[in-house]
């Protein structure tokens, strides 16, 4: 009887968590809002860290700014407005995506420019090569014969070698 009761009690104890357990609630009050905040803060630089985004950083200032930005997103501000807010206070340094301005034309255009230069130089060199490298003079009959025998011997040796290894 006692054993039965104990078993039932144990069973209940095991089931209870399952009964009271629920689908875990998202930590953030509003996950959709949080996603927006994350998207914005992951392109902003944490000013007191060694190269981290505000999204990842646990620094006090980063958390303060994250909260500030969350408030702004809730109030309906756009990503552009929020970025302007941050740049107004901390300068362009705070943006991990460098804005397109006079001083960054070379940055954004650079890789494309490099590509164009690279291929231009390549084509130029290929053309030069064509005119500079002498054409192979045709072989005489005797030389052609020699070539054939050598190649034949070579093929044999190669097959031999390959079947060995």
């Amino acid at each position, binding site marked *: 009887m006692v054993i039965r009761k104990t078993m039932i009690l144990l069973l209940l104890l095991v089931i209870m968590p399952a009964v009271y357990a629920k689908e875990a609630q998202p930590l953030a009050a509003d996950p959709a809002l949080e996603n927006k905040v994350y998207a914005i803060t992951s392109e902003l630089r944490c*000013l*007191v860290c060694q190269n981290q985004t505000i999204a990842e950083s646990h620094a*006090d200032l980063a958390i*303060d*700014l994250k909260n*500030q930005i969350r408030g702004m997103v809730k109030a309906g501000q756009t990503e552009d407005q929020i970025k302007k807010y941050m740049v107004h*206070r*901390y*300068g362009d340094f705070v943006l991990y995506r460098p804005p397109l301005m006079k001083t960054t034309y070379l940055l954004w255009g650079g890789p494309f420019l490099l590509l164009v230069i690279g291929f231009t130089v390549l084509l130029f060199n290929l053309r030069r090569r064509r005119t500079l490298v002498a054409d192979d003079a045709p072989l005489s009959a005797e030389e052609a014969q020699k070539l054939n025998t050598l190649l034949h011997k070579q093929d044999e040796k190669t097959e031999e070698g390959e079947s060995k290894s």
Partner: protein
Amino acid sequence: MVRFLVPLIVFIVVAGFLYVGLGLNPREVPSPFINKPAPDFTLHQLDAPEKTFSNKDMLGKVWLLNVWASWCVACREENPLMVQFSRANIVPIYGLNYKDAPDDAKNWLQQLGNPFIANAEDNKGNVGINYGVYGVPETFIIDKQGVIRHKVIGPITPEILDTCVVPLVQKLQAATGGTVVTRNMVKGCV
């Protein structure tokens, strides 16, 4: 023939930049407020919570706004110099107590010395954010029209005081009417 020299030339240019880079601080965030009006704020005073302090109170005067906190180690380093400087009465110094507990702040001032005429309490740090504060201590030099003319990042040293702060303050105080004084006019500030 010249094209073989291109890699060398490019390298030398890059090396030049690297050399200059050795003298720069990649983590320093320059203030975008230089030569712009100081953002407005009104906060309660640390020593007299019923009174408020605002940057607008200081229009017509050249003044220093020093951002500090009792938990800040470097502020401790700066304090003796600040106290000494305040006694010289060259320029009024006001404090922005940033993200601090009032009691801790008051104790700190009592223990170490108080260079401030008054302190504005910025517990939540919102005013700090508006001023682009990212590390304490930071000191703003503000002119008679309420325009920020320079920001010292980190503790003020005797050298910074002598070569930048004092000369700039004196120039700003001497300026009349329409004359614009910027920090570029003071060698030690640039």
